[in-house]
């Protein structure tokens, strides 16, 4: 039977996503952080109580999202904190590097894994040295740049894989998940839009 840890992990993505989305929306109304937390919690309760067909909206979201990877859980937590406090993380180099690596990993993994390509890179997560070596290089760079949140997230993912703590025995599932990939893409779209908006206009030439 499913353990309590499995039960909670399976629902952690849905809880954090619903909470962050509701808190972020309430940010538009310029509510205080305490009220944003309250609205995030109310949104979770509403999702649990509102039925869609034979199950609750929350159950649908849980079924659609799956459990997060360690970096995915960290990213969701950052989004939730950002939604409550209004603090933006997308200016930090560690956030940008981490989300860029998630985007890159997802681009390498998902198209092949869902059949768009003739090769399935998911098989690299069962055995061999390619994927672990790539992770070691990523860890080394993160240590070099003192990106300790990334180091911690990757190490937690590796520990989970070594202990076979999840249902999957594939290394990929401990370092990336589809929601984290989509959120990372969203983060980079936001960064790109902000960069375009803030781009300084060139000084107008003086016509003699």
């Amino acid at each position, binding site marked *: 039977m499913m353990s309590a840890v499995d039960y909670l992990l399976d629902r952690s993505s849905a809880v954090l996503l619903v909470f962050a989305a509701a808190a972020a929306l309430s940010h538009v109304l310029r509510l205080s952080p305490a009220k944003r937390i309250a609205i995030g919690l109310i949104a979770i309760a509403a999702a649990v109580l509102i039925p869609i067909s*034979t199950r609750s909206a929350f159950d649908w979201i849980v079924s659609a999202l799956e459990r997060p990877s360690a970096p995915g859980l960290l990213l969701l937590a950052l989004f939730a904190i950002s939604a409550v406090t209004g603090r933006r993380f997308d200016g930090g180099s560690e956030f940008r590097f981490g989300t860029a690596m998630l985007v890159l990993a997802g681009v390498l993994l998902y198209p092949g*894994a869902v059949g768009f390509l003739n*090769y399935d890179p998911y098989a690299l997560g069962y*055995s061999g040295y390619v*994927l672990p070596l790539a992770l070691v290089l990523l860890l080394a760079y993160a240590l070099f740049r*003192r990106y300790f949140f990334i180091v911690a997230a990757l190490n937690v993912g590796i520990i989970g*894989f070594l202990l076979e703590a999840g*249902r999957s025995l*594939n290394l990929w*599932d401990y370092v990336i998940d589809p929601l984290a990939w989509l959120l990372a893409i969203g983060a980079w779209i936001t960064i790109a839009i902000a960069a375009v908006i803030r781009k300084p206009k060139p000084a107008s030439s003086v016509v003699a």
Partner: protein
Amino acid sequence: MDRRTTRTLTTWTAIACSIVLSALLLYKMTNRVEPWTFVVDVPQAPVRGNLQIHAATITPPDEKDFVHGPSLIQTPAGLLAFWYRAVYEGAANAEIVSARFDGTRWSPTAVVKDSSAVTRDIGLTVKSLANPVAFRRSANDIWLFFAASRLSGWATCEIILVRSTDNGQTWGPAQRLYASPFLNMSHLTKSLPIRLSGDRIALPAYHEMNRKYPIMLVLDSNGRVVDKVRMGNGGTVGYQPAIIPTSPTTAIAFVRRLNSFRPQSILITRTTDAGRTWTPVAPIDLPNPGGPIAAIRYDETRILLAFNDDPKDESNVKLAFSNLDGTSFRRIGTLVQVNDQVKGDATAYPFLLESEPGQFDVVFSRPPPQHVIDHVRVSSAWIEQNLERSAEQK
């Protein structure tokens, strides 16, 4: 401790942890999946039994639901059949059901698992269930694999495993087979699992989302996926493979064609490295209406197939022999033909089992308007006699 000391300590702790974990990770990943080979079971297939076909309907006469995807396993108490039942194909609240055959009659149906039970067991909401296929793990243990859709449509399926330790009298909780990084979608079962060395199992399955293609999942002794092989060498290649090992390192797999594939023939793919790589699929000299093929090893030199011998419709179920290379085929005889008086009748999804030496059982479904799962039993004597007849007619 001042801030600088804390920072230095954090850095060195992170470096030490990362070095140790990286070393352990590399060690584990490079020594993880030890090479496997096929376990080849060559049955005796003595020529015996009566010359009549025994035919029966398994489902009750008042069955109104959609019933499909039957399979069989032999138990000490007789034959055990499984299939799925729902209001319509893919409908919510589906059931995996079973019935027992004592040699003369089929028992009333019993529910093995329904969507609610699977939802409760795995903690994620499951919509529908399909394609149960049983595997004998040991004298009393049966593992039952089936597909479960989480959202809507078969493309959202994952594979579920339930176990029985009393030959199918009771069933344990459902367990997910985790085999895909994309929300564990989209894999389904259809054909018999086969044994691998090291107490492992190869589960023939197929991918449904975006492009259909056959895959072979390698399971450890606990039923967890430890490797996954895409069969057919990429591309759009058909699905629902039936894998027959022909030696510890060689096997052939019969593959259901896609509806768009031409010619309208059964497809075949081969391996010479125990399933790590498979050749591109190629059509063989037997037609296929886009339905699954059931195949088992018959004897030293032959494979027995149950298939729809028609390029367009599931209008019959026939038996045929293939050689071990999949290069030569001989039709044996017709087990069942559709009833022309019933509009829309079809004989779909044949499943073949040698339940005892020289005794072969085939189950198949007759989709709506019939709502029926049928069973046919033939002997090796019937097979050999029909083979002679077909040779004479030729």
